[in-house]
């Protein structure tokens, strides 16, 4: 990578009928580490992810990724550049098997470069092997042949992380990956995130304050669509504005 930021935004704004969900955000997210975004409900975290990943077009402002202006790039092209995301509401192929979910994610890496009518192993490599290794990574090998919709909530969220991992992305956007998980599931998933983090930049939206403090490289605090503070967990913990506005003195 020729630049030292994963993402850069300039005056990024998105309004919904006049209401600015993301408002004039100018930020550089450095390469590497777990970059956590926190903020109260409705702060604009998911909207920010939607802008970065291309689900929503911005009302104004620019987005740079890997040195290129991607403001108007289609989502699939961003994915091909090495930007992958999971969604706040689990987003998988519910009526396909777990195996097929992962296999499709692995196959997607070759869309546009290899023929899917006459698949060649030299071009695509070992799809089955890669699929199985991801299933192993996310701990779903034993349920691979069941339908994804029959998985427990926590396993569905882990499956989605598996889909996101298939491309071996440089940057991952994870929108509340731990939401609704049991303590055991949370523990396993945090461990998974920590394990895949080296060599990538992870943008994480989370509410679980213990996890945030434990695994974040930096924390960005978002409030009413604007950046309130950026810093290390320690800095954020002691930041007065943050204390007042968000943490409410709980930490």
């Amino acid at each position, binding site marked *: 990578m020729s630049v030292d930021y994963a993402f850069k935004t300039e005056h990024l704004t998105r309004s919904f009928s006049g209401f600015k969900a993301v408002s004039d955000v100018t930020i550089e997210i450095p390469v590497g580490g777990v970059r956590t975004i926190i903020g109260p409900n409705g702060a604009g975290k998911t909207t920010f992810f939607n802008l970065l*990943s291309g689900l929503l077009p911005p009302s104004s402002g620019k987005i740079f990724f890997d040195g290129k202006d991607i403001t108007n790039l289609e989502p*699939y092209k961003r994915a091909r550049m090495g930007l992958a995301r999971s969604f706040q509401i689990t*987003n998988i192929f519910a009526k*396909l098997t777990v*195996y*097929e979910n992962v296999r*499709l994610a692995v196959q997607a890496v070759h869309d546009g470069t290899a023929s*899917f009518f006459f698949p060649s192993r030299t071009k695509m490599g070992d799809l*089955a092997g890669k699929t199985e290794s991801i299933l192993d990574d996310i701990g779903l090998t034993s349920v691979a*042949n069941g339908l994804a919709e029959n998985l427990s909530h926590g396993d569905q969220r882990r499956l989605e992380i598996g889909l996101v991992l298939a491309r071996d992305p440089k940057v991952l956007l994870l929108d509340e990956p731990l939401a609704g998980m049991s303590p055991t599931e949370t523990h396993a998933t945090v461990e998974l995130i920590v394990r895949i983090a080296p060599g990538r930049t992870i943008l994480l939206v989370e509410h679980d304050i213990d996890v945030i403090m434990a695994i974040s490289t930096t924390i960005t605090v978002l409030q009413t669509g604007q950046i309130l503070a950026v810093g290390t967990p320690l800095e954020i913990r002691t930041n007065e504005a943050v204390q007042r506005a968000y943490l409410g003195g709980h930490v």
Partner: protein
Amino acid sequence: MIRPVASKAWITLLAVAVAFVVLPLLMPGGTLDLYPFAGARFPVHAGFIDLATTVLVFALFALGFNLLFGHTGELSFGHSMFFALGAYGTALATKGFDITLFGSHLVFAGSHDGLFALFISLSIVLLWAWALGRIIVPRSSGIYYSMITMAFAQVIYFIAFRWSELTGGEDGLQGISRPHIIGIPDGWLGDATHVYVFTAVIAFLAVAGNYWIVHSKFGSVLHAIRENKQRARFLGYDVNKYRVNAFVLSAIFPGIAGWLWTYFQQSINPDAGSIDYSGRVVMMSLLGGINTFAGPMIGAFVYWDLQNRVSGITKFWPAAIGIVFAIFVILAPRGIGGGFEDIRRYGIQAVFRRIFSKSARIETEVAEELPTHGAAR
């Protein structure tokens, strides 16, 4: 985790081949007619071979349509346009034409070469489907997609209906001779049984091609798009490219069916491109089951079999078929093929319980615009 795909392909295609061989005998009046009162209540139908040929043509038509409906999750309500283009293309390639267009005189003498007609028809079908796909796909999905495809089909229909000089207008084109095709002796296609055999062989090859598409890695992407367009997109699939390609591929089969239809009927009229025909393949696919490979073909058989029997007893046969269709969609929302699959998987009792349970819901499993949420938080 190793699934023997290859052997399953052979079993499916063998079953299709066997079905094509016994099909004429199953039709009303055929020696294997399973309907218990066939002889007693209905006049023995001399044209059962022709009826079987009709079933094959529509089986192919519906199968192609279902590549889009069942496999990609997009409902085209205008697929008869490709059937009509294939049919009229063949008729005109055979009979030739002599028209004046924008002041210039266009003449073509016609050719009896069947493969030439196939080439011309499919070229027209592919070009039109590709152009339409490029226009429709990026701009619409869901109900709008259905409506726009229907609107374009009406364009083809009215051209066929109004441009009398080329298409023969309302009466269509008659007296189209059977084709010359290398390897087939001249005159051999003069016999109804031979026409059936010819149709069956072509249909079988096309079915095999369709099977290959559906079960390829390309086909698996279509299934991904059906289940969750957004997820597919964010995995890096160029979803609209696949939707256009699926549209074009699904147009080829009605095109081939139109080619066969013209030679079989030896005439063609605007009905081929009507909303009625577009609707029939939707019905056949749902009857047979859109999420099974052979479903649309089974649906084509049931539709024509039923049509033939009921039209023997009442002139209100379209109403009767409508009622049967409605009952089917309510009681067996996954169609006949889906019903068999469910019985195999869950047992007959479970299936009957579901049929008679009040909570059974109509669910076609066509992907909706929103992603299927595994679980809300």
